[in-house]
């Protein structure tokens, strides 16, 4: 019992540490937020977001924004550990490495969700659509989980290479395609008020992806951080 307790405590400690530090400096969140708003702005000029096409395109725009802003968060989160050797500090703790993975993944997910919660109303106001539908929120949650799960693993790798920040998107994007496809389709379905049985297969696939990749990532995390 004590062992399980220390495991959960460690996960909580890592996640809390990231959130507490970020709440104080707010560097990461502000960067992600400003970046997201800029991306949406650019989309305004790049795509014709008039009323007719908007609903079809909105989910795509949102997800592209989240994916790109997400890499900022993932990179920074791992860079903090690597730069001051703090990763060693984590590895010295007498706790299973996967606890570090879960702690980091949870805080990465939290950062993404915080940014998304702020972007949604911003987008709603700018383009006069209501994005606060429970179905859409569910999809965003599921998609972010999958993204953070794989992203945390791959950012732990990319931060240890010479090319650092640049490496993460290159590694992450081809592998995150299923999340993107299913999330965009499901989001689009909810926004366009399609019948539920048309949205369900996409939701299913998204959940399957999430489960598979959380499992793979935490099993393989050891190999990425240990020497």
């Amino acid at each position: 019992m004590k062992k399980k307790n220390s495991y959960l405590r460690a996960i909580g400690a890592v996640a809390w540490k990231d959130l507490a530090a970020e709440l104080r400096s707010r560097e990461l969140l502000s960067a992600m937020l400003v970046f997201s708003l800029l991306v949406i702005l650019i989309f305004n000029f790049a795509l014709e977001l008039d009323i007719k096409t908007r609903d079809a395109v909105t989910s795509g725009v949102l997800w592209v924004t989240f994916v790109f802003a997400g890499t900022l968060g993932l990179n920074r989160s791992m860079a903090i550990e690597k730069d001051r050797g703090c990763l060693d500090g984590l590895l010295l703790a007498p706790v299973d490495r996967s606890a570090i993975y879960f702690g980091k993944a949870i805080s990465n997910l939290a950062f993404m969700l915080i940014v998304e919660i702020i972007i949604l109303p911003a987008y709603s106001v700018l383009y006069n659509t209501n994005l606060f539908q429970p179905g859409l929120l569910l999809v965003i949650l599921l998609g972010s989980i999958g993204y953070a799960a794989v992203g945390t693993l791959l950012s732990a790798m990319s931060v240890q290479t010479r090319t650092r920040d640049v490496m993460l998107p290159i590694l992450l994007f081809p592998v995150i395609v299923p999340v993107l496809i299913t999330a965009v389709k499901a989001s689009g379905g909810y926004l366009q008020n399609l019948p539920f049985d048309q949205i369900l297969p996409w939701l299913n696939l998204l959940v399957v992806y999430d489960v598979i990749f959380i499992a793979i990532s935490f099993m393989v995390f050891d190999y990425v951080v240990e020497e």
Partner: protein
Amino acid sequence: MKSKPSALKTLDIVSFILLAVATYLALVFAPTEKVMGAVQRVFYFHVATAWVGLLGFVAAGVSGVIYLRTQNLKWDLVEQAAVEISLVFFFITIVLGSIWARPIWNTWWTWDPRLTSASIVELIYLAYLMLRQGIEDPDRRARFGAVYTLVGAISVPITFLSIRMFRTIHPVVIGNKSAAAEGGFSMSSDMKIAFFFALFAFTIIFIDLFWNRIRLGQLQQKVEQLKLKVME
């Protein structure tokens, strides 16, 4: 590790001969297809190279897992060889596919499941090679490579399934009733000969290239070792 083992030399020659024969079969022996004309001949090599690419893909994933379990760098070399070969062969597949698509569907590219998945696989391979480039320590390089091929190997089939939920215009050639309607066709027995021979020939070519590549990697390691000895 001296000169090439004779078995490998023989295999080199055999592969070359098989390639020549397969080319003859595809370009001359097989009858011209009624509807599509000569461009259909691309199909024999297109499927064969895709098959080789797939072999490499699976080999890479499997050897990655084996490396992680055994920590034996030999498997890392196998994985790297598999990725490189698969990268090249999938590229040939895509190019041949484009050559076929242009006259038939009037487009160089479509976003159907197979083509899109193949492109994503290529991007994953390129990411893999770039990842390895950025790491000095051989053990870490091997570990990260293995982890990434594992992640890729699992992600790609799911990607394929996801895209497949859309309608596809990619012909389903082998045994499909409405083949003609989708740009497919049924094969005569002569065509079948050319087709299966190409598959066989390219499998042998794959083994030949694989063996050569692994041998090359081992020679590289030997050179590294000698370099270090001289430096001390």
